[in-house]
C-alpha cells in the first residue's frame, strides 16, 4: 500500500475539518445524570401514545388517539377544558404540565407485543418520551408495562381488561384505570341471577388467549357462586371468523346460557353466528335460551348490529352517563370529532389527565414521585364517580356498568343502555385474590 498521497493540500484540508469538529461543543456522557430517564427540558414535555393503528383493534386505537389529542389540547389550555373542570383535583390549570407545553409522539402497536415494544422503545430512546400510554389488548399492555418498568418510564395502560395486567404481571411503574375480568364477573353475576334465575347451565366459548382465560374464569366463578352450573368451556382460536362449528354443539349440550368470552371482531362474528342458529328463540331446560357478552364496547355493538338487542354485558364507561364529568367529556369530544367517544377513548383521556395531575401534585416528573402521588389516590369527577387508585396493585376501583343491547336504538351510537351501576364495594377484591395471585409489584424504577 504505497498509493496513499499525503499531499500538503490534503493534510491541511483534513486538519481544517478536524479542528472545526473539535471547536464544536463536545461532551460524552453516560445515560442521564438527572436522576431519572428522559427528564424533560424547561419548555416542553413529550408523552408517547402507543396505540394499534393497524390490525384487529385499529378502530379502538383510532378512538384512543382522538382522546389523547383532546387531552393534550385541554392540558395545554385549548378547547373547552373538558373534564379539567369537573376533576376533583384542581391543580391542572391549562398551562401544560408543570409549566411545560405538552407535546406527543404516536406509534403503531399493530396489536403485537413485539411491535408495541419496538414502538415504545423508539419513543423512549429517540423521542425522549417521559410517559407511555395506550394499547388495546392485554398482551400488549403487559409487554409494554414490563418494558417501561425496565426503562424507568411510567406506563398508563389503555384498554386492557385481563386480570393479569394488575395481577400476575403487575409492575410498579404501570397503572390501569380500566376495569378487569374479575370486576365484569362480579358485576354481571347478580344482574344475571336477577334476570335469568339461579338455576342455569352455562356454556362458555372463550377466545383462546390470555384475556379469554381470565374472563372465563371470572365469569365462571362469580356465576357458580350464585348457583349456576358450567356445562362446558370451549376455546376458540383468536383468528376464527366463522363460529358455526362451535355454536352447533351448544344446543344439544344441555346448556341454557351461552357466554361469549370474545372481544372485538371475534364477538361480532360469534354473536352473529349464534343468532343465525336461532339460539335467541330456542328453549332449553324449560327456559329461554340466553346469550351473555362479558365485555361490551360500543364499537362492537355497532359491528354486531341488531343482534345485540337485549344481550347483557359490562362496560367501563358509556357516553350516555349523566354525571358532570361524562357530560363535559362527551361535549368536548363531540364538538371536536362529531360523534360520542367510546370507552377506550374515555379511559385513555382519563389516564392522561391522571398522569398530568400526579406530576403536578408531586411537583416532579420523577417516576417514583409520580408513583407515590398516584398510589392510594382518591379522585372524582372523571366519569366513573368516586375512584381509588389502589396502591397494592395499581388498579383503579370504581363502579362498573352493566349494560344491555338497546331494543330501540335512536341513532347509530345509541346502542347500549345502562341496566345497573354496580357499586364499587361489590367488585372490590383483595390484592392477593386467587385470580390475581403470583404478581409482584416490585418497587418503582426511575431509570438512569
Amino acid at each position, binding site marked *: 500500500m504505497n498509493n496513499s498521497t499525503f499531499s500538503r493540500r490534503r493534510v491541511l484540508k483534513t486538519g481544517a475539518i478536524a479542528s472545526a469538529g473539535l471547536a464544536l*461543543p463536545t461532551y460524552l456522557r453516560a445515560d442521564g445524570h438527572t436522576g431519572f430517564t428522559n427528564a424533560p427540558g424547561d419548555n416542553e414535555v413529550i408523552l408517547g401514545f402507543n396505540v394499534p393503528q393497524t390490525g384487529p383493534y385499529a378502530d379502538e386505537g383510532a378512538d384512543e388517539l382522538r382522546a389523547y389529542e383532546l387531552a393534550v389540547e385541554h392540558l395545554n389550555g385549548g378547547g373547552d377544558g373538558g373534564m379539567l373542570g369537573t376533576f376533583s383535583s384542581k391543580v391542572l390549570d391549562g398551562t401544560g404540565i408543570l409549566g411545560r407545553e405538552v407535546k406527543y409522539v404516536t406509534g403503531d402497536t399493530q396489536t403485537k407485543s413485539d411491535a408495541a415494544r419496538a414502538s415504545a422503545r423508539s419513543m423512549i430512546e429517540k423521542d425522549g418520551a417521559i410517559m407511555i400510554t395506550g394499547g388495546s389488548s392485554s398482551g400488549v399492555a403487559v409487554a409494554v408495562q414490563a418494558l417501561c418498568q*425496565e*426503562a424507568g418510564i411510567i406506563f398508563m395502560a389503555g384498554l386492557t381488561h*385481563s386480570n393479569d395486567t394488575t395481577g400476575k404481571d403487575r409492575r410498579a411503574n404501570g397503572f390501569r384505570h380500566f376495569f378487569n375480568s374479575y370486576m365484569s364477573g362480579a358485576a354481571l353475576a347478580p344482574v344475571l341471577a336477577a334476570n335469568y334465575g339461579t338455576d342455569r347451565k352455562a356454556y362458555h366459548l372463550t377466545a*383462546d388467549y390470555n384475556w379469554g382465560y381470565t374472563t372465563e374464569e371470572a365469569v365462571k366463578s362469580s356465576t357458580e357462586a350464585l348457583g349456576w352450573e358450567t356445562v362446558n368451556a370451549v376455546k376458540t382460536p383468536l383468528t376464527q371468523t366463522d363460529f358455526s362449528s362451535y355454536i352447533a354443539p351448544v344446543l344439544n349440550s344441555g346448556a341454557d346460557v351461552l357466554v361469549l368470552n370474545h372481544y372485538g371482531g371475534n364477538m361480532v362474528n360469534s354473536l352473529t353466528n349464534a343468532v343465525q342458529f336461532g339460539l335467541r328463540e330456542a328453549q332449553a331446560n324449560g327456559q329461554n335460551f340466553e346469550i351473555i357478552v362479558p365485555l361490551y364496547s360500543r364499537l362492537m355493538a355497532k359491528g354486531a348490529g341488531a343482534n345485540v338487542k337485549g344481550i347483557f354485558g359490562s362496560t367501563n364507561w358509556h357516553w350516555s352517563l349523566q354525571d358532570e364529568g361524562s357530560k363535559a367529556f362527551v361535549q368536548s369530544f363531540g364538538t371536536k370529532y362529531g360523534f360520542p367517544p367510546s370507552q377506550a377513548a374515555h379511559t385513555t383521556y382519563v389516564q392522561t389527565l391522571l398522569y398530568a395531575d400526579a406530576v403536578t401534585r408531586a411537583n416532579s416528573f420523577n417516576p417514583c414521585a409520580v408513583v407515590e402521588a398516584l398510589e392510594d389516590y382518591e379522585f372524582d369527577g372523571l366519569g366513573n364517580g368516586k375512584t381509588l387508585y389502589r396502591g397494592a396493585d395499581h388498579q383503579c376501583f370504581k363502579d362498573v356498568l352493566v349494560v344491555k343491547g338497546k331494543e330501540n336504538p335512536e341513532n347509530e351510537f345509541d346502542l347500549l343502555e345502562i341496566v345497573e351501576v354496580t357499586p364499587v364495594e361489590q367488585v372490590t377484591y383483595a390484592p392477593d385474590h386467587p385470580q390475581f395471585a403470583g404478581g409482584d409489584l416490585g418497587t418503582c*424504577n426511575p431509570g438512569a
Partner: protein
Amino acid sequence: MLGLEKKDFRLLLIVVALTMLAPFILNPFPEGSDMAQFNAGYPDLMQRFVIFGILAIGFNILFGLTGYLSFGHAAFLGVGSYAAVWMFKLLSMNVIPAILLSVVIAGVFALIIGYVSLRRSGIYFSILTLAFAQMSYALAYSVLTPLTGGETGLQPKPGDPRILDRALEPGETATPGLFGLFDMRDSLELTVGNWVFTFNAGYYFAAVIMIIAFYMSIRIFRSPFGMMLRAIKSNQTRMSYTGLNARPYTLAAFVISGMYAGLAGGLLVSMDPQAGAERMFWTASGEIVLMTILGGAGTLIGPVLGAGFIKYFENIVSKINKTTLEGWFYWLPDGLEDLVITVIYPFVGKGWHLTLGLLFMLVVIFLPGGLVQGGQKIAAAFTRKKPDDAKSSATEPAE
C-alpha cells in the same frame, strides 16, 4: 486475508466499517431539526438492523444458495427467543448461555422440520415449512401457554430462580448483560454541537456477532459445500443422475440457516427480554423473504441491506403522523398545505405498509437483483464500465 479473496475481504471491511460507524451514519440530522424524524441512530433500531441482518444472512444461505424457499423461518426465530428467555429465567441474565442455547434449540428444531420438509421441493417445501411455522405459532399462542406465556409473551420476572446470579437488591430489575461487564442497555452519548450520537453496548455486541456471522456466510458461499448447494439450485435432477444424494447437503443448509435464525432470536431477547408468539406468525416469515428479495437474494450483502430497509420503514415512516406533516408543510399556503398533506398522509404513519409495498414492486420490476443490483448499476454508471463487468462480480442475483 482471513482465508478470503481480496474482493470479499474488502466487502467484509466495508461491513465492519458500516456497523462500527452506524451511530454516526444513521444520525445525519441535528437534534431538534425537522429532519430529525428520519434519524435512525437510536439503540433499539440499530440493534434491530444488525439482528435482522443476521436473520437474513442465514435465510440467504438456504434460499440464495439452494433455492429452497422456506416460508417458516420465523419459527426458528421464535424458538430461539423462547429458549433464551428461559435461560434468563432459570440460569442467569448473562447473554452467552442464553444465546448458545437458542442456537442449539433452533438447530434441533430445524433438523426435525427440515428432515420432514426436505422430502419435497419447490412449492410443496414452502407450504410444508409454512405449515410447521403456523403450527408452532398456534401452539405457542394457546396450548403451550405455560411454556411460552401465550398471548402475553414470556419475560423475566423479579421472582425467577436465576441460580447463577446473586439475588436482586430491592427495586433492582434484572437486565441482560455480559458477565457483569456491561448491560445490554448501557449507552454512551456523544454530543457534538446539535448532534447527539448514541453508542449502545448491546448494539456493539450484536454488531460484532453479525460481523462474525457475515464472515462465516462468506466462507460458506466460497466453500466446496457452497458450490454443491449452488449446483443443487441449478439442476437437482442432474445432480442425482450423477449419483449424488442432495438431501444431506440441503438439510445441512437448512439447519445452518435455522441456527442463524435462532441466534437472531436469542440476540433479540438479549436486547429486549420479551418473547411473543407473533414473531412466529406467517407474516414474520414473509418479512424475512421480503428482506432477502428486496436486498438481493444470493448476494452476500443484499439481505442485510434489505433487512435494514424494511426495519427502517417499520420504525421511522410508521411514526410520521399528521401533526408531523403539518410541521413540515406549515410554510405552504393553506389550501396547498392541506392538499399536500392529504396526498402524502396515506403513505406514512399507519400507511407505511403501502409505501413499502410500492417500493417492493418497483424493486422487483426494475431491479430484479434487488438493491444490490441498483448499487451495481450506479457503480457501473460512475466507473463507465460495461454492465457485463459489473455482473460478473460474483454477486449474481438469484433468479
